């Protein structure tokens, strides 16, 4: 039954729709748009044809890879939607308990999140198609992930037009002018956020943007504060977090994520669920995650050892659940296109990001959060890291090869050796 249905859909596409988009058809310019839709619906019948080349190919492809990142984002996305509503209602003094008003909170969250996501996808998707038509290359899958990522790293109060402008900027100047997916130097989603951050700082930082109040802004409870844990900790360190009166900002509150912040970044638990999927499937590289985690812990630990101020004394493990550290670690730093490409390089790249993120976060008073900038810096240094790793590989090989010269007449001394 299903087979019959899909077969007739395929035949319909091939006989009735495709001719309009191929050479000589009415919409031949839009061929790649048609192709994108067809390849979304059907894995094409293309067979292996290279000479010389393998006759059998692995079932993996880029669409499958990308969709698994999207799957991994779902927990953070669902939690983020709920949390928009949750923060909204406790600001009004309603449904203060975690389990209360689940549906209402969710609906408020959807009302905020869906328009952002739709605007991002529409703007980004249109630009992708536009470029594919002009540059005559297939529409690639990159934006499938970039879109949701952008929507998850902005504050819930972000005006939609800003989202649109930032997305357009990032997709055009961050990716397409370099040649599209696979060619970009910095992470497209983070570039969108950086654009917003520097172009419209009032909407991206401070205490007013992290909690969606909507039309109820004048009904907030006494003592309301929209400050994120990062901002509170930056002011007065551990003590300030403990004594913060409006909400409880304990370690576990931040781990579970019922705190204000960018939409998808607050719940470390939800992000860890995504990380579990990415690591289990091998879609994201564990070396980068481990490197960044180590870098972050190392730096925070160093601050703990020499606490010149209250913030530096904040226990190191707090940094892992605050702000965008977990989200950046799992979803941003691991972007294979913009990260280092050698195994050794990945460790170094991750470590550098972890260190720089903490340095900006704790030592630089101008920016409360450093993860975004640290990853962008990491992206820019990744080619250099790879270059150095490859250079050291080359000199090692040269030394090694000149050393192996078997003696002419006898078998070499027997020893068990293990390689690769």
């Amino acid at each position, binding site marked *: 039954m299903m087979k019959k249905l899909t077969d007739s859909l395929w035949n319909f596409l091939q006989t009735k729709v495709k001719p309009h988009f191929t050479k000589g058809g009415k919409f031949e310019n839009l061929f790649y748009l048609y192709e994108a839709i067809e390849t979304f619906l*059907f894995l094409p019948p293309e067979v292996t044809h290279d000479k010389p*080349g393998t006759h059998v*190919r692995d079932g993996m492809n880029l669409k*499958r890879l990308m969709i698994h990142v999207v799957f991994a984002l779902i927990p953070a996305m669902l939690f983020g939607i709920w949390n928009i509503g949750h923060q909204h209602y406790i600001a009004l003094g309603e449904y203060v308990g975690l389990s209360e008003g689940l549906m209402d909170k969710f609906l408020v969250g959807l009302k905020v999140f869906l328009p952002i996501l739709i605007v991002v996808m529409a703007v980004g998707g249109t630009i992708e198609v536009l470029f594919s038509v002009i540059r005559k290359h297939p529409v690639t899958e990159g934006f499938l992930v970039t879109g949701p990522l952008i929507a998850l790293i902005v504050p819930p109060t972000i005006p939609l037009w800003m989202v649109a402008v930032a997305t357009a900027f990032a997709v055009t100047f961050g990716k397409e002018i370099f040649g599209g997916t*696979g060619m970009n130097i910095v992470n497209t989603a983070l570039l969108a956020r950086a654009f917003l951050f520097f172009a419209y700082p009032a909407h991206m930082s401070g205490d007013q943007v992290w909690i969606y109040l909507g039309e109820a802004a004048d009904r907030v409870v006494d003592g309301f504060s929209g400050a994120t844990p990062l901002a509170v900790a930056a002011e007065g360190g551990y003590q300030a977090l403990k004594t913060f009166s409006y909400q409880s900002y304990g370690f576990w509150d931040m781990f579970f994520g019922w705190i204000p912040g960018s939409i998808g970044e607050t719940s470390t638990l939800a992000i860890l669920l995504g990380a579990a999927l990415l690591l289990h499937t091998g879609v994201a590289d564990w070396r980068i995650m481990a490197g960044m985690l180590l870098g972050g812990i190392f730096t925070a630990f160093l601050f703990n050892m020499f606490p010149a101020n209250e913030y530096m004394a904040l226990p190191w493990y707090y940094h892992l659940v605050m702000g965008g550290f977990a989200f950046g670690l799992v979803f941003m730093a691991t972007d294979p296109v913009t990260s280092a490409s050698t195994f050794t390089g990945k460790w170094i790249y991750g470590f550098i990001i972890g260190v720089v993120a903490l340095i900006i976060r704790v030592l630089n008073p101008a920016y409360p959060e450093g993860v975004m900038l640290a990853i962008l810096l990491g992206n820019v240094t990744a080619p250099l890291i790879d270059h150095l790793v490859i250079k050291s590989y080359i000199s090692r090989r040269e030394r090694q090869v000149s050393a*192996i010269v078997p003696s002419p007449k006898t078998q070499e001394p027997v020893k068990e*050796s293990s*390689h690769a």
Partner: protein
Amino acid sequence: MAYPVIKLKRGYDLLIEGEAEEKIIPLPETPTTVAIKPTDFLGIRPIPKLLKKEGSIKAGEPLFYDKDYGEELTWTAPASGEIAEIRRGPKRRIEAIVILLDKEQDYYEHEATLDNADSVRKALLSSGLWALMVQRPYGLVPRPDEKPDAIFMSMFDTHPLAPRLEFLVKDYEEDFLAGWEALKKLADGLPIFLGYSAERPHEDIFLSLNGENIRKYFFSGPHPSGNVGVHIHHVFPTYKGSRKIWTIKPQYLVWWGRLFRKGIIDLTTKIALTAHEVKEPAFYETIAGVNVKALLKDQLKNDHVRVISGNVFTGTKIDMEKGHVSIKDNMVTVIPEGDFPEFQGWLITHYPKPSISRTFLSGILYHLGIPVRYKVNTKMHGERRPFVVTGEYEQVTPMDLYPQHLLKAIIVKDLDLMEQLGIHEVIEEDLALCEFVCTSKTPVQKILREGIELFRHEVG
């Protein structure tokens, strides 16, 4: 005496249904033609000089030579009969010389003695059996006037469905051992490296090969642990072209042996017919280079298949009706064509697909070490994309290499970087797995060959 064991971890064993049973079954149809394909021999020009274009020819009679290699090295007819066709491809390049088989084979007599290195060399050159050797770097036919630094022979084949090499030389033991003597004479004191499997049991015929300056190494791990290129990389690397190495497969020594024992070219061998589209996967005993139709009659489960001379990673597609098995191949793989659309096939797995990716059940099972045999097809399973994923090639390359960086160096034609990243150490078969696993569906082998050719012509 204990020999060094080299443990390799990276790689992938693609298990396909339809392994050939180790028995010889009668040919379903008497072979009518054999062909020799100049394209099987890398390094020679597209249009070699033909010594005979028509008329009858004896098995082993000189057929063509290449201008670059000189007249000393002549390729000879694989069997006796009538020259039926010179099959040409684009730009008149010769793709195959087809010989209509005689009922009774008539052999051209060669002078071949095992006296010394020079007599062996001369016999191999004039009989064309020389060209069965492959030179590293670049994977070419060795030049007649050169001497290598070592000779390598891998005693096992880890490609999907590849036959056990002991079985290929079984029944021809005397020929094989005579061929081995010839190889030792040819080496003339240079080391011969033999690579054995540390996991698959070997028979005495291989294990007992001995002599002066023979070195034995054992390798464990998944494919490509049986590739001679991997062996060379670990025990006697050719990095930056520091060494020249000749390689040969054990089964070819049988033909060498016949040359020296009887003075004739007798390319009788065993050919395995494999994979799940074959009714009875088993071995045939016939002449190498035979027309494939003779093997396939009544053996196919359906018609919509691809017939591959060789294995699914490095073999060549041949025409079911008119094609011939390559002389250098001892197997034919038949798999279904995958030219059908799959609804949401990139997301939904309609049937088990082999993969190293743990987004598939098959990938999870593989990583858990549970062996599963698959029915495969020729589907691309996705569209070509720029490089996105990193670390994927390294996962299946048990060598100290950066395959993806090497490919990028080739794509941008950076000759220095190509050399530094080890273009001398690999040929197509060594990176074929990278092509199999590639998420972006990059034609790895094609790019690599283009890079090797570019490098060879620019640098020499």
